[in-house]
C-alpha cells in the first residue's frame, strides 16, 4: 500500500466519519434500533431469565448482523450520482474508496457492536468470558460486515431500490460471520477450540476484501 493510496483511504474515512458526526445515523438511529430489538425479543419469546441467558448471545449476533446492515443502507441512500461522479473525476482510486468506505463502516459497526453488546449483557445477563477473543471476534465481524455492506452499497448505488436491496444482499452472505461469531462464544463457554471458527471468519473477510478491491474499478465504471 503506497502513501497515495493510504492518504486517499484516510480522506474517505475522514469524510464518512464527518458525515456521521453531522447526521448521526448510527448514533441516533441504528444503535437505539438495535437496543430496542434486544428489548423486544424477550417479550416475544418469554421472560424466562435462564432461557434468555442461553439464547442471549445468539440474539445479540442476529441483531448485530441484521441491524448493522443499516450502516451501509444509510450510505447507499444518501450518496447521489453527482457526488459519485465528482469523486471519480477527482481521480480517487476506486479501490481506495472501497477500502476507506469499508474501514469507516467497520469503525462505526464496532461502536454499534460494543454499545449493543453492553445492552445485551445487561438485559440477558450474559456471562462475558474470554474477553481478548471476544474483542477479536467483534473486530473481525465489524470489518467483514463493513466490507460486505460497502460492496453491496456499491452494487446498488444510484438504483431506485438501492436501500431496500442492501439487506437482502448482505444478510445471506454474512451467515458465515454470524455462525463464526456465535460459535466462538459457545467454544469459549464450553472450553472448546475456537480456531476453526476464527479461521472461517478471517477467510470470509479476506475473500470479500479481495473481491471488493478487485471489482472496485469495474463497479465505478458502471
Amino acid at each position, binding site marked *: 500500500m503506497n502513501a497515495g493510496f493510504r492518504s486517499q483511504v484516510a480522506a474517505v474515512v475522514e469524510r464518512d466519519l464527518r458525515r456521521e458526526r453531522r447526521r448521526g445515523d448510527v448514533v441516533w438511529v441504528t444503535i437505539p434500533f438495535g437496543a430496542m430489538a434486544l428489548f423486544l425479543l424477550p417479550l416475544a419469546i418469554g421472560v424466562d431469565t435462564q432461557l434468555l441467558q442461553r439464547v442471549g448471545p445468539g440474539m445479540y449476533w442476529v441483531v448485530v448482523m441484521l441491524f448493522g446492515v443499516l450502516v451501509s443502507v444509510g450510505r447507499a441512500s444518501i450518496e447521489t450520482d453527482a457526488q459519485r461522479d465528482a469523486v471519480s473525476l477527482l481521480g480517487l482510486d476506486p479501490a481506495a474508496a472501497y477500502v476507506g468506505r469499508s474501514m469507516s463502516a467497520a469503525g462505526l459497526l464496532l461502536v454499534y457492536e460494543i454499545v449493543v453488546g453492553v445492552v445485551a449483557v445487561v438485559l440477558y445477563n450474559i456471562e462475558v468470558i474470554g474477553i481478548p477473543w471476544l474483542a477479536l471476534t467483534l473486530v473481525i465481524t465489524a470489518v467483514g460486515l463493513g466490507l460486505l455492506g460497502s460492496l453491496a452499497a456499491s452494487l*446498488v448505488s444510484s438504483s431506485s*431500490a*438501492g436501500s431496500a*436491496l442492501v439487506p437482502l444482499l448482505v444478510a*445471506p*452472505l454474512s451467515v458465515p460471520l454470524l455462525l463464526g461469531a456465535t460459535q466462538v462464544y459457545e467454544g469459549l463457554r464450553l472450553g472448546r477450540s475456537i480456531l476453526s471458527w476464527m479461521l472461517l471468519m478471517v477467510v470470509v473477510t479476506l*475473500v470479500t476484501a479481495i*473481491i471488493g478491491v478487485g471489482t472496485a474499478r*469495474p463497479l465505478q465504471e*458502471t
Partner: protein
Amino acid sequence: MPSEIRSRSWPWIAIGVSVAVALFLAMVSPADTVQGELVRIMYVHVPAAWLAYLAFTVTLVGSVGYLVTRKLSWDRVAASSAEIGVYFTGLAIGLGMIWAKPTWGVWWTWDARLTLTAVMFFVYVGYLALRNTADDSRVRAGRSAVLGILGAALIPLVHFSVVWWRTLHQPASLLRPDGPAIQDPLILWALLAGVVAFTVIYVALMVKRIELHRVADRIRDVERSADRPVAGASVTAPELGGGLGDE
C-alpha cells in the same frame, strides 16, 4: 422437414426422450429396503440439486467472462443460468422438505447442507433482484457480475458441507473420491438418467432464455434510443424582435 422446424423442435425431442428414459428407469428401479417407495424422490431431488450447482457455476463463468471481455453475451449467459438455478434450487429445497417429513419427521431441520442451500438460494434471489434495479444493460451486467462471482463461493461450501459438518443430511452419493456409494446398478442408472434429463432441460432452457434476454436487450435499446433527444434538438431559433409577423 424444413431445417427451421428441425432446429426448433430438437430441444423438445431431446427433453422428451431423456425424460421418458429417466421416468422409465425411476419406475422400474427397486424400492429401498429402509425407505421403501419414498426413495424415488431422490431421482428428482438429486438432479435438481446437481442442476443448481451447474447453473450457478455457469453464472460464475458468465460473470467472469463479462468482466474480462465486456461482451453482453456473457452477461446473458450468467443471468439465464442464475434464473434457472434459482428455480431448480427452490425445487431441490421443496422436494427435500417433502422427503424429510416422512424420513426425519420434520419439514425442515438446521442441518448444514439445508441451511447453506437456503442461503445460496437467497443470494441468487438477491442477484435477480439486483438485475431488476438497473435499466442500462452495461450497468446491470457489471454489477450482477460482481455478485455472481461472490455468490459462487457458496457452491463448494454447500457441496462439502456434508463432509465438513456431519449432521443429518446424508453424504454425497455420486461425487465421491472412492466412487458412487449406490451399489444397485439399476438405482445408479436411474439416478444418472435423471441427471442427464435435467441437464438436457437446462441446456434447452438456457438456449431459450439467452435468446429472450437478447431480444429484451434489443427492445430496451430501441426504446432508450427513441426517448433520447436528437442532437441539436435543444437549440431553438432565436425569435426576431420587431414583430415582423404582425406588421
